């Protein structure tokens, strides 16, 4: 993430995303595959580390091996196999949603994971309870813990969609998109941009 100055002089927090070029490697149709989808590939992969089957699959689209392959179901983009999708499909000022995997936080307590406020106070003779979850249910009834009770556990590393992010600027030559605000994931992670 960084921040840039917009023409009105305001500083806007934004994320730089390298959007494409994504090569269309396969078109799945209802007749042949049972569903309709567009398979796109992004990022260079070494040929020596790519299985032969995949090399040939990419060769069908007359392209080099790619590192990320993604299927877009019921995609409205009309491109032929071998053609590439670039950031041109987006417009400046448009609202987009970004799908990605959030940063993994490891095993976290309820205060960080669910926003609990802990039990009790720091003073007045209390100790070791400030980040505790509190009661998780009744003893005699229901004498069990309800399913879905919010407890400590693994946090992050989830697929998340962030909606209504504004496209601040597009650099078509470099395929860079500036999107206002933050997007899920660490630096260099793969995201999907939807309009």
């Amino acid at each position, binding site marked *: 993430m*960084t*921040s*840039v*100055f917009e023409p009105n*002089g305001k*500083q806007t927090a934004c994320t*730089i995303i*390298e959007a494409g070029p994504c090569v269309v490697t396969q078109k799945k149709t209802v007749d042949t595959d049972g569903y309709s989808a567009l398979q796109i590939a992004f990022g260079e992969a070494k040929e020596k580390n790519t299985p032969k089957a995949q090399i040939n699959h990419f060769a069908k689209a007359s392209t080099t091996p790619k590192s990320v392959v993604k299927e877009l179901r019921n995609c409205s983009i009309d491109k032929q196999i071998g053609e590439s999708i670039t950031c041109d499909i987006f417009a400046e000022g448009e609202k987009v949603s970004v799908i990605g995997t959030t940063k993994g936080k490891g095993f976290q307590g309820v205060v960080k994971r669910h926003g609990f406020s802990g039990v009790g106070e720091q003073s007045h003779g209390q100790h070791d309870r400030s980040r505790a979850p509190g009661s998780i249910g009744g003893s005699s009834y229901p004498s069990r813990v309800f399913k879905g009770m919010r407890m400590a556990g693994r946090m992050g590393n989830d697929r998340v969609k962030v909606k209504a992010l504004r496209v601040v*600027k597009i*650099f078509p030559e*470099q395929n*860079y998109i*500036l999107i206002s605000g933050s997007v899920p994931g660490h630096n260099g992670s793969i995201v999907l941009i939807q309009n």
Partner: protein
Amino acid sequence: MDALAFVHEQMTGKKEFPKFKAGDNITVNYKIIEGNKERIQSFKGDVLKRQGSGGTATFTVRKISDGVGVERLFPLFSPNIESIVVNKSGRVRRAKLFYLRERQGKSARIKEKKQIHATARVKS
């Protein structure tokens, strides 16, 4: 060039500033937009710190206004900065002069850096 440097160069362009650092006394001429009118306000004071790198770098200027300390933080590459003028360069031993916040009057002054001329002594 990496993406970050490229984007900052495209968005802000190259801006020329005089060299200044913490301890210098500078005047920042800052554009203020009120409705449709635009005017320039100058803020003169000592640089407390320079912080950050690249296109998001900022600096803080502190001045005493009517006996009250006023600090203002400017983004270095803000398009609203008309110009920066260095009035005095100070002799300080720190990069961040937060100790000035606790000082008043005489002890809050910063010594001016004197131009040192090297003199060579001939040894016989």
